[in-house]
């Protein structure tokens, strides 16, 4: 069980984290989701021990680890740019954590070699142990980084935008692969991302952060269907905004019915096919606010210049202060 209590962190006059509280159950796969500057990476690094908080506590199973150096916290960390040791082979990279153990804890050389091979097999890089990182592709390097982190049998796995530096296709493949690996190993994991699609796909629970504060914590379903604040509503999934009587109304593009009369008038600007729906881009006639609507492709395609009338099926109302009305 990992807990974070009232963590604050400032960099000079810039406040990166404002009193963060969070509990993580054993075996959970948590995503810290937010835009740049939201503090998510800072929080991750504080948990790891790569940064130190100004106030607050980090608890591993109830023990305050704030005084522990990173080397003693027993966490596996995967960096965005892999941080592989370029002068060592892949196998030597993976074995590093075992090689630097104190003499009495260090396994025999043969045992270390076997473990390294086992891990390379786990990440599907068998036979590449003799290569150098410079000779591998981005996706392969990230898998080496993961194997290296797992070698020390950490109790907590931390990943800092692990797929940020990769091509879209490789990213997708690795995402799925990581999800399967987590199912297989059951290791408590926290990963940082700004890609909400990634967070929704991978995580058991998502922590949405903005400007150093937690906006909402919940399952991907909860976050998507019941955003707690306008920020979450905007950041996660696509959102349309509309003026309501006492605040703003947010609704998703697909949560909309087309009606003959009543509802809101929308002037259609552009229509294109998106999978099984028509994506209709237009503007609310009354306020000229931009809207995106997904209509079943079985229905007739709306034409640019046409006016259609819509009624949101589900929506959330946020009062001017940003709370739910």
């Amino acid at each position: 069980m990992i807990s974070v209590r009232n963590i604050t962190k400032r960099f000079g006059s810039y406040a990166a984290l404002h009193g963060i509280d969070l509990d993580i159950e054993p075996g959970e796969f948590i995503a810290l989701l937010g835009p740049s500057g939201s503090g998510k990476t800072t929080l991750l690094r504080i948990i790891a021990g790569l940064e130190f908080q100004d106030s607050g506590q980090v608890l591993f199973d109830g023990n305050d680890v704030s005084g522990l150096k990173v080397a003693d916290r027993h966490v596996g960390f995967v960096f965005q740019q892999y941080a592989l040791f370029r002068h060592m082979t892949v196998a030597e990279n993976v074995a590093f954590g075992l090689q630097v153990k104190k003499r009495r804890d260090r396994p025999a050389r043969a045992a270390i070699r076997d473990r390294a091979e086992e891990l390379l097999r786990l990440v599907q890089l068998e036979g590449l142990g003799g290569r150098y990182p410079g000779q591998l592709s981005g996706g392969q390097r990230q898998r080496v980084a993961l194997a290296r982190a797992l070698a020390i049998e950490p109790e907590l796995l931390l990943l800092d935008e692990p797929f940020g530096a990769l091509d879209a296709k490789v990213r997708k493949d690795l995402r799925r692969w990581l999800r399967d690996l987590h199912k297989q190993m059951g290791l408590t994991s926290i990963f940082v991302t700004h890609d909400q699609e990634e967070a929704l796909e991978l995580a058991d629970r998502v922590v949405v952060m903005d400007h150093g504060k937690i906006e909402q914590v919940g399952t991907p379903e909860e976050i998507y269907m019941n955003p707690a604040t306008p920020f979450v509503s905007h950041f996660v999934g696509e959102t349309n905004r509309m003026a309501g009587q006492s605040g703003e109304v947010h609704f998703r593009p697909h949560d909309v019915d087309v009606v003959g009369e009543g509802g809101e008038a929308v002037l259609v600007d552009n229509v294109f096919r998106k999978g099984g729906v028509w994506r209709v881009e237009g503007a609310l006639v009354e306020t000229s606010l931009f809207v995106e609507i997904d209509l079943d492709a079985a229905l007739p395609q709306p034409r640019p210049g046409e006016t259609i009338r819509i009624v949101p099926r589900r929506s959330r109302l946020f009062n001017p202060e940003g709370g739910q009305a």
Partner: protein
Amino acid sequence: MKLRATSEDRVTQIVLIGLALAFLAFFLLLPLVAVFSEALAQGVGPFMDAVHTPDALAAIRLTLIIAAISVPLNVVFGIAASWAITKFQFPGKSLLITLIDLPFSVSPVVSGLIFVLLFGANGLIGPWLAAHDLKIIFAVPGIVLATVFITFPFVARELIPLMMEQGKDDEEAALSLGASGWQTFWHVTLPNIRWGLLYGVLLCNARAMGEFGAVSVVSGHIRGETNTMPLHVEILYNEYDFVGAFAVASLLALLALVTLVAKSVLEWRFDLHSGASH
């Protein structure tokens, strides 16, 4: 615990900084200070006298002439070479770059030797020169040649990495807009490389004025005629005229300081790569 996870503790840092500064001061700063201290050991008067003797003035004049000839020659070469190397693809490019670096790895004395072998009295072309009453060795042309050889790589070495990094995009854009080759070079390339060029010129000049070993071999040490400032320093020193020697030396040291300051300013203001190409 305000430390970063991956830095040494404050005490270690301070000790290391102290050690580094101490060694630098001992090995590098002290000699520099000694030059000025010895030059002014007997006061400003003797200092001024020493740099105004006819021989000293002749040496200064010769040094300036040498620099005025060799630096522009190597600038033209440097620009031509880096243009050819960085804007085009051809086989043998890295060989060419290695060859350009050759004078760097040759001992200064050997640099002088090779010209003696070519143009000296018993050299390959020696007899022919004597027959035509042309003096190269033990005369100014020889000194110019040796200096050009020694300072050959300086400008090219600064420009090549710089222009490689800048690529060809700007030039290709200019050409596609209708500029001629010369216009492109003058209005696009030159402004892009001007600070690197200045930097290379500074280093080239400092070395041209300060070269000792190579020039010593080819000059013949004829006072008033083929003595550059460094050679003049040697002569004075060997005659135990220490104030005189250090006085002239301090002028050269001053030049070195100006070069260093200018280099620092250029690096700071225009973010040139520092030192990677030395």
